[in-house]
């Protein structure tokens, strides 16, 4: 059953996220936890439904088990639909052979048939790497108004950081005349957010042409956008202002979590007008013990706090026992910090147990980097884990 849709979203969720190391060992990056009760992919999915886009293809490839489970039938995002809804699109075997997704453009190319079934006017390409709240419908309106063939969302970045991004140079009315990937000497501060709106026909034409070019690496940033620019297609930059953060590294993931805290948080999630939806476990409320100390922290359902929690973000079902101290840390679901343990400047993946009187990480001001403990690891009583460590398997003995 297919109904015509004005816009179909394609969400690239196949990346490995290798710079998140232990956190993406068994999980695709979009399924990494964020902000206590969310996963990174909740942001683009919630943005879609809040923007009125109810047909979303999610392209998966790397370690999809957790991600597939998490998305399920799309119920938490109201994307369990008879017409449209969320669909997982893994690489598949065809008559002529089977191919992994060789690049972002190839992933979409292999699913052109999926898009065509809904006969959309526009296709929005999203990625599962960013934390932001954005109304895509405004971007699509902009695309229509400019009679654009391809619209790229851009955000102003400080000039000294511009060389880390794909930089767009635009003329006065926003038309793009130059795109440079990570330029050494950037001539603009408009960074691509990796969000593209294409008119369907142009997208199809360029993807099909790109696929025929054997030298192409089948990537939007490297191939499709430059090819469209070279052909002088109408391409516009859609300016976005607001919170946007790439959480592709351990330090940026930690920072983005900290952006939820403080007296005037950079990122507000307690926002009825733009709710971020997520899949819920039926947890009990949080219990704060008689001697607990909690300062400047975000705590989720199912937590039991008897110790001290400062400047930290706690996922659901976390237990902080008596005398334990958690500082400047991000704790994922169902971790247990036993009595007297100290956790400083650390990210704990889900189901980690920190033994009694163990010390993990050091004070943020003296640490060389964030310590990361991988999912399901138990740190022995009285043991000591230094700063800037990455523990992804338990050492015997």
């Amino acid at each position: 059953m297919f109904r015509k849709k004005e816009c179909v979203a394609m969400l690239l969720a196949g990346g490995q996220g290798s710079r998140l190391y232990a956190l993406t060992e068994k999980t695709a990056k979009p399924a990494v936890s964020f902000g206590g009760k969310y996963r990174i992919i909740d942001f683009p999915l919630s943005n879609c439904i809040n923007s009125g886009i109810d047909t979303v293809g999610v392209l998966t490839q790397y370690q999809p088990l957790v991600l597939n489970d998490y998305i399920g039938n799309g119920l938490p995002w109201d994307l369990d639909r008879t017409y449209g809804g969320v669909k997982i699109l893994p690489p598949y075997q065809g008559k002529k052979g089977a191919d992994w997704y060789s690049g972002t453009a190839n992933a979409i190319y292999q699913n052109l048939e999926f898009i065509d079934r809904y006969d959309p006017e526009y296709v929005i390409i999203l990625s599962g790497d960013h934390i932001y709240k954005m109304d895509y419908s405004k971007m699509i309106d902009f695309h229509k108004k400019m009679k654009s063939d391809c619209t790229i969302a851009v955000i102003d970045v400080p000039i000294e950081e511009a060389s880390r991004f794909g930089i767009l140079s635009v003329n006065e009315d926003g038309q793009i005349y130059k795109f440079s990937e990570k330029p050494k000497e950037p001539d603009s501060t408009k960074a691509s957010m990796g969000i593209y709106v294409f008119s369907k026909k142009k997208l199809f034409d360029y993807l099909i042409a790109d696929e025929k070019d054997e030298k192409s690496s089948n990537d939007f940033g490297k191939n499709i956008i430059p090819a469209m620019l070279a052909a002088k297609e109408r391409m516009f930059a859609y300016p976005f202002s607001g919170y946007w953060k790439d959480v592709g590294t351990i330090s940026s993931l930690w920072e983005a979590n900290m952006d939820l805290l403080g007296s005037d948080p950079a990122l507000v999630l307690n926002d009825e007008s733009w709710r971020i939806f997520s899949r819920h476990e039926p947890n009990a409320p949080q219990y704060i013990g008689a001697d607990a100390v909690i300062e400047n922290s975000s705590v989720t359902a199912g937590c039991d706090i008897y110790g001290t929690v400062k400047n930290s973000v706690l996922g659901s079902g976390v237990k902080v026992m008596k005398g334990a101290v958690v500082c400047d840390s991000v704790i994922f679901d169902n971790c247990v910090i036993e009595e007297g343990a100290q956790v400083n400047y650390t990210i704990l993946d889900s189901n980690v147990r920190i033994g009694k009187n163990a010390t993990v990480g050091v004070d943020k001001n003296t640490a060389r980097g964030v310590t990361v403990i991988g999912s399901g690891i138990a740190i022995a009583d009285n043991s000591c884990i230094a700063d800037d460590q990455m523990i992804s398997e338990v050492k015997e003995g």
Partner: protein
Amino acid sequence: MTVAGLIFANIHDACLPELTARRTMASVPFGCRYRLIDFPLSNMVNSGISKVGVIAHDNYQSLMDHIGTGKDWDLARRSGGIKILPPFITSYTSTTAQRLYTTRLEALIGVTNFISKSTEDCIVLSDCDTICNINLSDVIAQHERTGADITIVTREFEPSEKFRPEDVYSVSSDSNNVITDISAYNANEYRSSEISTNIMVINRIYLLGLVNDAASRGYIDFYRDVLSKILQRGTVYAYHYKGFFLKITSLESYFASSMKLLGEDARTGLTSVEGRPIHTKVRNSAPTLYKEGSKVANSYIADGCEIEGVVENSIIFRGVKVGKGAVVRNSILLQDTFVGDNVQLNCVVADKDVVIKDGRNLSGHTTMPFFVSKGTIV
């Protein structure tokens, strides 16, 4: 043995007029994030029951809003699932069966259709003032083993509990758990240390027979007119429930019961039981933010709150804001209560959407909590 469920949504509304003025007993908020119906409903779902009828009486908008399609309890099903059963009244008749029901028995007569159209072997009945995490599979297993027609879940009550007599029945049983006597609870005449929880398992065809017979004879009271008359058959059994149980009988008892949630036994025996979670409507609240200067002790707190002040011995529902310098003690603040800066609260029960402006000072007593009704601006 296949089982369906039936829940009485309104039956104890009169106990708690403050909180049921605009809602059913079933939709009375309790324990930070739950409504009372979440307890019987989760007990049924956790025991594998996938077909539940909810008998409503009046005021059931909030109940329907809470239940929705039933998907939060995994009860949005093609076959079975959850069905709200509103009163069945026609304008052109005046027989007992077609007036708005007043008793448990009349309510059952009103849902004869649900009972007869079901195909399950037996039906579990439950009220909504049964705050417990009971493994109904055990009750059903005993029911099957003994070959009972009816198995009533009983519990011992504490001397401190105060009941309205029409609300509670004393139950006596012999050493084989066969019930020998059922009578209205009387504080002055001690009959048994056990009372009925009103949770019971009944063979469906047998129940249908009882209901049809009662309708034709004009019976009114399920315990007095039906149950006590069939005890001599020796097929009505008691299941002695020993676990954590709360029953709400008044605003004072609502307050006391809520405060019991702060105890360790409530968390291990009610809300955090491994494999038997209490399901509720998902609101997608953000996590709770404890701001600089907040001080929270011995409290049960839902998601979606922002706390800048002091909170002690309190139950805080979703979306509550507690301002700077505010002190909230021994209080229950329902969904989206706004507490301004430097407010002092002690023994307050604030219904949904209450706004308490900066600097206000409200205080009740544990035996007479200060109640602020829904949407009030103080």
